[in-house]
């Protein structure tokens, strides 16, 4: 059954106001910027964003006023530093106040892993003694029933929708993802529903030729969006490199609220679709980011 939708339609149907949305789950690569930009264009409000480090997509969604709450380990600009919109929202409630429930990369992963196992929580010794453990009120401190030692209990976290950018998917949402995986699989398994954004739509046979490469069960997928370059400026292994300069420009231009608004008008609100964004990037920039040297995985035989 084809679940192919335009990005516009996928976001309209499956990311309502107030939803808890997990995205940016592979850490620096495969961040679904195209999906985030469409969320901004549709003026979605009161979202909870769930992710490990998210890079600048969280910052953009916060600056655009879409976000009420953050459950994440880090919000900023990985190669540049602070997230200016995140700072303005937290320090000055601009454009609106937000709440952060601080995690570490491990605890946000454990929270999603717990949900994926139907476990109410997973205990850890990470963060003991940290103010993170004290200030995130979803955590509980407890003693191990086995030996009395102190533990931090990380409760299961279930996103309403997880958005994953992948290299390729079939129309039903059976998707191949490769490279460093971050907490993508945990977030897919934990979610109520999943939106797959793919560089390429391929036949079912391509996917089933390598079922170990599949990221999770397609029955959880509610929409498949074909969006080449949909993760720019983040990298997609085998498709394009990270556009470091884009992060730098964003960092420089968004120091003020006005600068951010101009950036947003130019790169998000003033563009109707990802096709326009790609055209605006221009072929020289795209070419510079494209794959220069293919490196294919060694053959694997599933035969019998």
């Amino acid at each position, binding site marked *: 059954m084809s679940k192919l939708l335009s990005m516009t339609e996928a976001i309209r149907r499956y990311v309502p106001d107030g939803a808890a949305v997990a995205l940016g789950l592979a850490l620096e690569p495969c961040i679904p910027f195209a999906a985030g930009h469409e969320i901004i264009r549709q003026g979605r409000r009161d979202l909870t964003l769930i992710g490990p480090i998210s890079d600048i997509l969280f910052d953009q969604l916060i600056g655009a006023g879409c976000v009420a709450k953050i459950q994440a380990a880090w919000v900023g600009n990985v190669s540049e530093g602070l997230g200016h919109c995140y700072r303005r929202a937290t320090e000055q409630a601009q454009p609106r106040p937000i709440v952060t429930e601080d995690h570490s*990369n491990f*605890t946000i992963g454990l929270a999603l892993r717990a949900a994926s196992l139907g476990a109410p929580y997973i205990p850890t*010794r*990470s963060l003991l*003694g940290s103010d993170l453990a004290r200030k995130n009120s979803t955590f509980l401190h407890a003693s191990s029933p086995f030996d009395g030692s102190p533990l931090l209990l990380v409760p299961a976290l279930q996103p309403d929708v997880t958005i994953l950018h992948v290299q390729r998917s079939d129309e039903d949402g059976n998707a191949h993802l490769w490279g460093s995986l971050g907490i993508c699989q*945990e977030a897919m398994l934990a979610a109520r529903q999943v939106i797959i954004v793919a560089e390429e739509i391929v036949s079912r046979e391509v996917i089933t030729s390598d079922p170990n490469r599949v990221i999770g069960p397609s029955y959880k997928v509610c929409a498949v969006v074909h969006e080449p370059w949909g993760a720019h400026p983040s990298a997609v292994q085998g498709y394009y*490199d990270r556009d470091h300069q884009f992060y730098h420009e964003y960092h420089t231009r968004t120091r003020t609220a006005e600068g951010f608004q101009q950036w947003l008008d130019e790169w998000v609100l003033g563009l109707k679709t990802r096709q326009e964004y790609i055209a605006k990037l221009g072929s020289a920039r795209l070419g510079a980011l494209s794959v220069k040297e293919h490196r294919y995985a060694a053959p694997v035989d599933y035969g019998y």
Partner: protein
Amino acid sequence: MEYTPRELMVVCAARQIRDGERVFVGMRLPLLAFALAKRTHAPNCVGIFETGLIRDTPARELLYTMGDAPNICGALWATSTINVIGLMAAGEIELGFIGGAEIDRYGNLNTSLIGDWQQPRVRLPGSGGGADIASLAQRLAIIMPHERHRLRERVDFVTSPGYGYPNEQGPAGVAWRQRVGLPRGGPAVLITTLAVFTFDPATGEALLQSYHPGSSIEQVQEETGWPLRLAPDCAETVPPTPEELRVIRECDPHGVWTS
């Protein structure tokens, strides 16, 4: 031979890596330190990256982020974040690197916020994997710019636990980590633009181990927000060798991270 403060920091960081060790590598300078150690005194060290990567060779190109494509090519394992941090939680990672915006005399690090938690003056990005590395690695190496407002008597928020604080139950140090339930670890070294500190595990206090060439104990004190204690063998930092500088500059020819 001339060198930048950051090149010296990379050298100091690399010297923390012992041959054969498993090292949780952070962004920026630790990436270079891993490459330097690997190509000099620690050819058998293994690097672990929180995106879900293990490699035993440095990436062929300069990395801006650990998720960059060159870091994945040639990796021994590409997997999930909790699989690799899990190895550290299980005690298998000897050394971890992190940075921070603020640190205090007990090695507690703040990367979350300046000011009050409810109404911060500056909101910083947060932990990332930093708090995990500080909690779970066998030894912690910290890399930071040395400024008086960053090296404080007490940080506003403990993102990544160092040696805690003395309190009614006992002293800071290893004893504090045991009290709160941390399974191991603690800061082994703090490398700054001016100096190298080690830590007294019994009290948790930072000890000035060496001051960089061109700096002095006095200058370090001036830029440090607590009264210095000196290590018994406190001396000038051993400068980079030409070989070390050569390798660093091969890895970062344009000085993206070291200038």
